[in-house]
């Protein structure tokens, strides 16, 4: 809501608010603190400097230039000034804006004294554009010439006067963000009331008066109204004006509208806009002659629901198809307006209009919103109705419009009023519980202060007995605030009143009374739960392994599922789809994090980063019931979807080719260690995993629980086809781990093993086996045959070559034996080695002989 400060000042007792940056900012700050948040403010026409009203004394041809004129201009000083102009619409006697020597016009252009073709010019005569105005502001102005002021605009103007005060440009506009509970503040009067309370001034309100009604004529001769649906139209008020003269509005009205951001059109339209700004009540003026008159004794307006498929062409010349939920204003044969939104094409005010109907109605907000959304048609009027207006406004607004018609002398108000309503909610009285309010706020505001604040906010302090109430103290809520007050429940009203009182008292003036107490609530132990601590451990493991945490969108493109080679029947294709996604790329809830990680890798490659190590801990989502099965009905406590915590990580590294499958395997092992899971296995048999298609079949593994019953995750080199799909032209590695499952099996039991007292004995064995033998198979035999003196064994070299033979490889193992109670002898270790070799030979693994 934009308001003119000059206009606002008219409602405030005392001096008007000065139009300067300091005072306006001060005003804005105060309003923000009391609950009307200022978004922005601007001093209007601030750039114009040193432009005055001048009178042309003489206009003569320039001696040396055909297209220039030399003017003598009275600028209210002892001597006239000489100014050269190229404009052709200047004549002696004309009152015009003069940019004097050292002045600034619109656009920041500086004007100084100079010579034009040898003739001195002490300034410049200005056009509307050079003042930052347009033809809506001065409809009679010559677009290509100087602004020559005319008619009523000359009233109150003095020669030599600063142009800003002369043309009422000296104003500031303040933009408020009005919260949805304060529909009353979408009006000058509403904001003036807030301003008055905030600034501690008295509010000056004016009751409209129609002085010269034509008593001989009656509205009944013209019009009757039937409201068919009071739910959607709680009140319909109308007046009729005859002998209308359509003209431009006077300067003061045009100036106010312009400052409020509304373009002046003509007197009648301007009046409806003015009243809407002043009261927040949208008005509609339509041409009476446009209503069909099938009956004698006047025409009839019917407020009714549209028929399905009924059509209307609105003022913007668009034909619109309506539905039965939409409300229209109709005559007996056709709809003439979309209620609260826009008039019909031909019902608008034109220069030929003779008689008009002023409609000032109250339309139900949901209905206006439905119609406006459905038709994609939003107007100032519909925006106001959508906020929910006070039905008591209609009368004041229509009377004000009629008053302005008389003031502008643009028509004759016919006596009588149409005012249709069914029932109107009355303002109610309610309890003011001083103690409870202070208890909620932690304040000690006195009863007197509370009443004082509420009175300024238009609440009435009343005698409870008068309302048949048993309370001690009682206030009556103003009708226009009823929708903000949850009627009935005293605790809620107390909270509402506490807000009214505290915002005016000042949230920041309510202080901690004791000065010591930090908070009043009970002491209890806070902290993270076990799962949250587990997650922190996982995060730390990844970071220390060099991975950067990423944040990726939870919704993805469904194309991803094909891009990672998911089979058509994969359970990961049972995803949740958004009804209203931003686009196809973000239209389904992800069931795996892998594509997001691959996309991150791809983007980093595109950004020419040499390497990238990334991880993402986030949710994946599945429907509660599989497709085709009906959802269980909603009940409290139920969950709308299945959400699982997943970890995905991956990397590519063009700077270090040594980082490969075994690097990501190392990270997996570190994560398992961080989770405290010792009993797990890695298996190259990945085909059972949902994501197996995304991985290189020979360079990937699944992580299994020790009993093979659970699959914690999958990792390895990404399948080249999948890499291609993501435009990843280098080798990349990734993993996905089910964190919920990992957590269920995690442990943070840490038990100390005594440090060894006796030395270990180590042996190296070079073993020749089939190329496809996994080292783990050898390890298992070594471990088993070593018995209790086994400490560790690890392969440290793999060799293939002619010496070994086709289809074979040599794996060198280092083995360490130790007994915690004594020093081992060579002999007993040799016995163990022999046992190991014998077992290995049984499966054709032999000691390498060179």
């Amino acid at each position, binding site marked *: 809501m934009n308001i003119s400060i000059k206009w606002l000042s008219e409602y405030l007792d005392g001096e008007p608010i000065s139009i300067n940056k300091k005072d306006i900012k001060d005003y804005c700050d105060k309003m923000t603190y009391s609950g009307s948040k200022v978004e922005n403010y601007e001093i209007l026409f601030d750039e114009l400097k040193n432009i005055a009203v001048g009178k042309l004394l003489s206009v003569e041809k320039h001696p040396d230039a055909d297209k220039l004129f030399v003017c003598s201009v009275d600028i209210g000083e002892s001597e006239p000034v000489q100014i050269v102009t190229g404009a052709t619409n200047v004549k002696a006697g004309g009152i015009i804006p003069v940019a004097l020597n050292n002045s600034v016009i619109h656009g920041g252009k500086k004007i100084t004294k100079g010579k034009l073709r040898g003739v001195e010019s002490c300034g410049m005569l200005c056009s509307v554009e050079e003042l930052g105005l347009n033809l809506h502001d001065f409809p009679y102005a010559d677009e290509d010439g100087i602004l020559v002021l005319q008619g009523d605009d000359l009233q109150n103007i003095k020669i030599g006067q600063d142009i800003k005060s002369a043309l009422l440009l000296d104003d500031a506009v303040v933009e408020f963000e009005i919260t949805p509970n304060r529909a009353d503040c979408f009006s000058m009067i509403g904001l003036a009331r807030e301003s008055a309370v905030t600034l501690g001034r008295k509010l000056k309100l004016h009751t409209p008066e129609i002085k010269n009604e034509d008593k001989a004529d009656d509205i009944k001769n013209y019009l009757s109204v039937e409201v068919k649906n009071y739910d959607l139209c709680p009140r319909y008020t109308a007046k009729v004006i005859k002998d209308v003269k359509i003209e431009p509005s006077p300067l003061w009205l045009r100036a106010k509208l312009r400052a409020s951001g509304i373009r002046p059109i003509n007197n009648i339209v301007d009046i409806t806009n003015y009243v809407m700004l002043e009261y927040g009540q949208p008005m509609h003026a339509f041409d009476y002659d446009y209503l069909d008159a099938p009956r004698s004794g006047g025409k009839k307006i019917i407020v009714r629901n549209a028929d399905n498929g009924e059509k209307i062409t609105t003022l913007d010349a668009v034909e619109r198809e309506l539905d039965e939920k939409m409300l229209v204003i109709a005559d007996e044969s056709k709809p003439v307006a979309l209620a609260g939104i826009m008039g019909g094409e031909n019902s608008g005010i034109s220069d030929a209009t003779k008689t008009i109907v002023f409609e000032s109605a109250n339309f139900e907000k949901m209905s206006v919103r439905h119609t406006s959304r459905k038709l994609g048609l939003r107007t100032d009027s519909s925006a106001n109705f959508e906020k929910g207006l006070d039905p008591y406004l209609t009368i004041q607004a229509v009377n004000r419009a009629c008053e302005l018609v008389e003031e502008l002398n643009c028509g004759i108000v016919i006596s009588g009023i149409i005012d249709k309503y069914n029932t109107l909610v009355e303002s109610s009285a309610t309890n003011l519980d001083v103690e409870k309010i202070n208890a*909620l706020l932690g304040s000690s505001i006195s009863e007197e202060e509370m009443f004082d604040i509420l009175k300024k906010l238009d609440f009435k302090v009343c005698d409870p007995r008068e309302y048949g109430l048993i309370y001690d103290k009682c206030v009556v809520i103003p009708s226009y605030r009823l929708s903000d007050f949850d009627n009935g429940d005293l605790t809620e009203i107390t909270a509402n009143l506490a807000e009214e009182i505290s915002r005016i008292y000042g949230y920041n003036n309510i202080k901690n009374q004791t000065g010591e107490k930090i*908070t009043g609530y009970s002491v209890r132990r806070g*902290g993270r*739960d076990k799962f*949250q601590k587990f997650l922190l451990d996982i995060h730390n493991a990844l970071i220390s392994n060099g991975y950067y945490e990423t*944040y990726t969108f939870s919704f993805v493109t469904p194309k991803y599922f094909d891009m990672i080679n998911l089979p058509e029947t994969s359970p990961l294709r049972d995803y949740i789809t*958004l009804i209203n996604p931003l686009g196809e790329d973000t239209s389904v809830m992800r069931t795996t994090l892998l594509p997001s990680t691959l996309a991150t890798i791809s983007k980093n490659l595109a950004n020419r980063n040499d390497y990238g*190590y990334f991880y993402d801990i986030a949710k994946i989502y599945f429907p509660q019931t599989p497709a085709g099965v009906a959802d269980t009905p909603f009940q409290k406590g139920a969950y*709308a979807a299945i*959400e699982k915590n997943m970890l995905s990580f991956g990397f590519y590294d063009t700077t270090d080719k040594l980082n490969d499958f075994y690097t990501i395997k190392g990270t997996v092992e570190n994560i398992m260690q961080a989770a405290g899971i010792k009993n797990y296995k890695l298996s190259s048999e990945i085909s059972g995993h949902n994501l197996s298609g995304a991985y290189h079949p020979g360079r990937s593994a699944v992580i299994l629980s020790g009993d093979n019953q659970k699959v914690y995750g999958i990792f390895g080199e990404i399948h080249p086809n999948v890499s291609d799909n993501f435009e990843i032209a280098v080798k990349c590695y990734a993993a996905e781990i089910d964190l919920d499952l990992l957590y269920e099996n995690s442990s943070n039991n840490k038990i100390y093993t005594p440090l060894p007292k006796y030395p270990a004995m180590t042996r190296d064995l070079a073993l020749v086996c089939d190329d496809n033998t996994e080292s783990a198979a050898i390890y298992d035999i070594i471990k088993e045959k070593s018995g209790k003196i086994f400490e560790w064994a690890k392969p440290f070299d793999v060799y293939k070559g002619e010496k070994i033979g086709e289809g074979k490889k040599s794996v060198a193992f280092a083995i360490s034996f130790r007994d915690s109670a004594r020093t081992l002898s060579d002999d007993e270790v040799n016995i163990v080695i022999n046992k190991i070799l014998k077992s290995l030979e049984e499966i054709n693994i032999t000691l390498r002989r060179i």
Partner: protein
Amino acid sequence: MKNELSQILGEASAEIKNQDADLEQIRIKYLGKKGKLTDILKKLGTLPAEERPVIGAFANEIKTKIEELIAKKQKELAGLNIEKKLAEEKIDITLPAKQKETGKRHPISQIMLSLEEIFIGMGFNIVKGPEIEYAYYNFDALNSPKNHPARDIQDTFYIRKDEKEIREDDILLRCHTSSVQIRFMEKNKPPIKIVAPGRTFRVDLDSTHTPVFHQFEGLVVDKNITLVDLKDTLEAVFRGLFGEDAEIRLRPHYFPFTEPSAEVDAKCFVCGGNNENCPTCRGEGWLEMLGAGMVHPKVLAGCGIDPTVYTGFAFGMGLERLAMVKFGIDDIRNLFENNMRFLRQF
């Protein structure tokens, strides 16, 4: 003979002084089996019996002195050598470091962790809730009217939405973490003291909005909780976040689920409100940080908590905004691009 011995000491010490390498040679020359001192000692037997012990003792003294001189010189030479060696070993310390690059938490997580730390210090528990929600938890239970604009398909992502009427069992992506308040209050009775960080969603995309974002919700419900408690708590939080000079202010506002409601600004921590051209606060002096208020009685009652006995406060802040302000990030979309060059900076 005594003179002879003194002379040997003089010769030896002069020789040791001038020698800068092979001291062993000197030792052999004087103290070796055929050395000068040994030669003299061999003649000891020729001396009269009463002189023998005196000269013998003197000879030993001389021997010790020579040994000491040699040892001293040796140490001196060793010292010179090591210095020379170290001087030769000098390296260029400005060459690149060898390091194992560790990763980092995302800037949003870093802000989240700082806040969690502060709240845990004040005795709060951290709780989580689902991201896919029933409209009931996201709107109705929060006293959000059926016609609230946020319920529109233009503002909130829907998974299931009845076309004809606005329903509690419409399914959506939660548009704030306030839904966690309801889920928690349904299952837990006061005293309640929780924070709920989490992922939220709104139909929005520009330089200050992403459709996926993160909020940090707080809720305290107990007897005698006041607006002052809310202020004090938030002040403590912002002092924890921005330092002991941090200031906050409350501005009246409107939220359906709180009454009174406030928006909370923090004094600009870059300029302290003293720079009209401050790029962080754009000269406002204050940074809009969060929404807060006293929990609406209807919200409490709906969760089975008697609003005539208990009161509470709640607040919610956007972590992206906080991260952007704190780290000076100009475009929110950077936070979801995951460019290594970006992530490495925090």
